[in-house]
């Protein structure tokens, strides 16, 4: 296991404490007292079987959903508070999903510039950033293609690009390789790791595949609504 990082004295960036979350007014309990901390620069896996609550936990960390109880701190912001959520998404976190969730009919480039539209970042700045990322992700030669014209692997790389555009400190990735074949899956995962290391981005990745979990620095197994670091 990747114990080498455990003693690093990097600061904590994500702190999840005693989180409870159920659906249908508690009729479907999913997370039962989850506690975990993740340090800056960690590449952490949330590993567990289907339905264990990985997506639910990621959504809570990104402020897309609210826990029933417990506290979360992500880069100094509180994703459970409506007032912090916008800043969290605009400055601190980027999302990658299993399905690329890109906007059809927009070009590759336009999809990536959407975050800049949200924050009102000057266009030249966004384009400069995009060119650098697109090059590293190997998608720069297709930047004016519409999403429909791209392959699955390319789309997922575009999704990575979009998630990194606003220089987030954390990438929350939900089965980012789930829709790809083995070779492409590994390729995308490797690129993600490389970029993360270079930009000192923390990664929290949900996966049900042990081999991807094993390739991370830390593994949190989600089982019976709780988290165990292994």
């Amino acid at each position: 296991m990747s114990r080498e990082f455990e003693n690093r004295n990097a600061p904590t960036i994500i702190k999840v404490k005693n989180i409870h979350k159920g659906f249908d007014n508690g009729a479907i309990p999913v997370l039962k007292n989850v506690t975990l901390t993740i340090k800056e620069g960690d590449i952490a896996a949330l590993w567990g079987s289907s339905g264990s609550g990985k997506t639910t936990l990621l959504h809570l960390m990104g402020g897309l959903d609210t826990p029933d109880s417990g506290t979360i701190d992500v880069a100094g912001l509180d994703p459970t508070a409506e007032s912090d959520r916008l800043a969290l998404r605009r400055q601190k976190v980027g999302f990658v999903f299993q399905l690329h969730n890109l906007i059809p009919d927009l070009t590759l480039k336009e999809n990536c510039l959407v975050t800049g539209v949200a924050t009102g970042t000057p266009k030249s700045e966004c384009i400069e950033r995009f060119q650098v990322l697109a090059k590293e992700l190997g998608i720069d030669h297709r930047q004016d293609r519409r999403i429909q014209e791209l392959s699955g692997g390319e789309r997922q790389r575009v999704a990575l690009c979009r998630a990194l555009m606003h220089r987030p400190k954390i990438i929350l990735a939900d089965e980012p390789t789930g829709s790809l074949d083995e070779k492409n899956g590994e390729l995308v995962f490797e690129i993600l790791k490389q970029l993360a290391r270079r930009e000192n981005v923390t990664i929290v990745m949900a996966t049900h595949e042990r081999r991807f979990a094993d390739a991370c620095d830390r593994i949190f197994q989600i089982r019976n609504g709780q988290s165990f670091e292994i």
Partner: protein
Amino acid sequence: MSFLRLIFINLTRHRIRAIIGSAGIAFGVAAMLTVLSIVLGAINMFERILSNDSHYLVFERNVSDLFFSSVPEEAVEEIRKLEMVEAANPILFGLVSTEDTPVITCFGITNDDPRLDDAEWIAGDRALFGTEPQTIYLGSRAAEFAEVELGEEVPVGNDVFIIGGILKLENGFENGGVFMPLKLAQEFFSKEGYSSIVAVKLTDTELGEAFKKRVEADYPDLIALENEEFSQSYSQFKILSATAWSVGVCAFLLGGMGVANTMLMSVFSRIREIAVLRVCGFSKRQVGTMILGESFILAIFGTLAGFVFGFIALRLMSGIPQLNGYIQPVFDAAILAGVALVAFFTSAVGSFYPAWRATRIQPAEALRYE
């Protein structure tokens, strides 16, 4: 890419839907423009018939329609004698019908009426007006329409008249009407000794108030109104313009529902996408603004298209012989602005719910939504 560009791209992604949404507004705009133009054009023409070279109109108090107004000849004589009056022309309005035209406006006028001199006499002799028995004079459009020529005998009502002249008049109503010497008209309509109104020209417009007081004191049954005052208070005009506006507003309600429907469909089909935008840092307000922006652009295109449709419709209608002259499209800036304003207002109201609905989308739920 800018926010505006995103809005544009969103619209071009579902062109048919966008076109249908815009078309609703366009038809509203075209309908309102057409109806308003016709009605206001008609009112305008009617006003000019009345105010032809005059300052004041004298007519019977408390009549709903000038066709029912009766002013006795003695009053006309008295008014003429007032020192502040330069000219007073009695006019008797009536409606006549011929075989192929159910309604023609008939003007009973005296020989000194200014419109006889202002008109271009296409046929007949101005000097003979009122001197020959059983003779009437036609506006050139009425003549064209009835296909009659100078000297021809035409049956009107239960009588037969001789065409003594054909006049080309600038006003569409007049040009489509029949002119009779006042005496003949009084006989024909059995209103001997009366006219409908008296158009009065003063020696000095400053004397208006004095004139009004004098007439109303001498003849309690009569009322004297300045031309402008008259247009504003005449209930027929009010009814007409109210009708025009309400027809227009109804057309717009339909247009607004079209926008509401288009935008709602658009929001529902983009639930996941809107969730992704939220994830990418869009605030609720930005999402709402985006939807409102889309409908705003629909409204812009709809309004422009509506102006074009309306304009074409009016052009086509003024080409129809039966309507020729009656339609005087009023393309005045205030009306265009008013119509555009109503269009934007309706589309804003129509897109309010879809926009609100879009802001309510919960990212976590929507992302699970396949």
